[in-house]
């Protein structure tokens, strides 16, 4: 069985393309890219490289991706996604995370799923897939990207990545460089920071000003019941 799965994964990984990311473009989805997906479209292999290096710079690391390395990766090779019909034919389902990436992305995804599920898929699947030492080294860099994405989400990601306009103004020397950086970063959604007051619903702000419930109810009751003022 293991041999058939390895052959199947190799068959998928033999499909290549020049455009990185999901087959139809758009945002890539996988745990690797944080909960909201990659947040940007990889239109060129360079974009993918910039995305990875932005995150790796946090760990003083760097990676390089060549266009010819891009292969179709399923990114969710796990026992739950394989099916065998009564004739013994093997099927692979759930292509939601698939896209064109270097092959070590597939290997990383397999290793990641094994870690999450806490069990191994057959005997040494990654070795059976014939991972080269270079690919094994790249697995570690992807783990760093994953660690970065799980650590910095939402506001913090953008705080770390995008230089603020004020910062840009201060460095007049490398204006062009920063412009370039900004256009590169333009694809990443920036989230607007809002103050606490704006985040609170109006009711929560007015809550302390309200007449306490007991007094309110008592006054209603007093109005309804006959008293010296309406008898």
């Amino acid at each position, binding site marked *: 069985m293991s041999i058939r799965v390895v052959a*199947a994964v190799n*068959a998928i990984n033999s499909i290549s393309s020049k455009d990185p990311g999901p087959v*139809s473009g*758009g945002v890539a989805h996988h745990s690797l890219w944080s909960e909201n997906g990659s947040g940007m479209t990889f239109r060129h292999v360079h974009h993918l490289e910039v995305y990875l290096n932005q995150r790796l710079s946090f760990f003083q690391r760097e990676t390089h991706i060549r266009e010819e390395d891009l292969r*179709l990766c399923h990114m969710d090779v796990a026992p739950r996604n394989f099916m065998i019909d009564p004739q013994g034919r093997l*099927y*692979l389902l759930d*292509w939601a995370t698939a896209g064109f990436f270097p092959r070590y992305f597939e290997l990383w995804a397999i290793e990641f799923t094994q870690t999450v599920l806490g069990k191994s898929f057959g005997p040494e699947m990654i070795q059976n897939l014939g991972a080269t030492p270079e690919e094994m080294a790249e697995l570690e860099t992807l783990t760093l990207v994953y660690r970065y994405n799980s650590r910095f989400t939402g506001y913090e990601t953008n705080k770390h990545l995008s230089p603020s306009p004020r910062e840009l103004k201060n460095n007049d020397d490398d204006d062009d460089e920063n412009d370039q950086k900004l256009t590169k970063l333009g694809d990443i959604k920036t989230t607007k920071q809002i103050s606490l007051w704006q985040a609170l619903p109006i009711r929560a702000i007015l809550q302390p000003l309200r007449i306490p419930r007991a007094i309110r109810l008592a006054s209603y009751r007093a109005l309804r019941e006959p008293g010296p003022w309406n008898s």
Partner: protein
Amino acid sequence: MDTLPFTDDDIVHLCQHYRVLQLPLLSHELSGRRVVRLSDGIIVKFGLGVTQQEASAQQLASKHVDRDVLRIPQVYRFFERPDSLFWKAGCRGSDPGADGLGATRNVHTRRRGCERD
């Protein structure tokens, strides 16, 4: 275009009422992305998070991978319905749609109850 015996509206209807129509649910009951068998050899995957990316990847792979090595279900149709109940309820989500055949947004909504004093 595919030659399926269903229009998009048919599929939307079948997805919305699969429970009443007693169509077999192949996915997990609580899953956001549900898989329902419409007829022999035709299934629909629908719900939030079913994306064009998934449909096109599956289509490409099923075209290029040798069928003796690995089989991948062929994608017949993909479409999105942003105007279903889910959308009207004001819920936001990632791209809706489906593969396998077609899709709707998940119609099972939870309305926000009015707060009372």
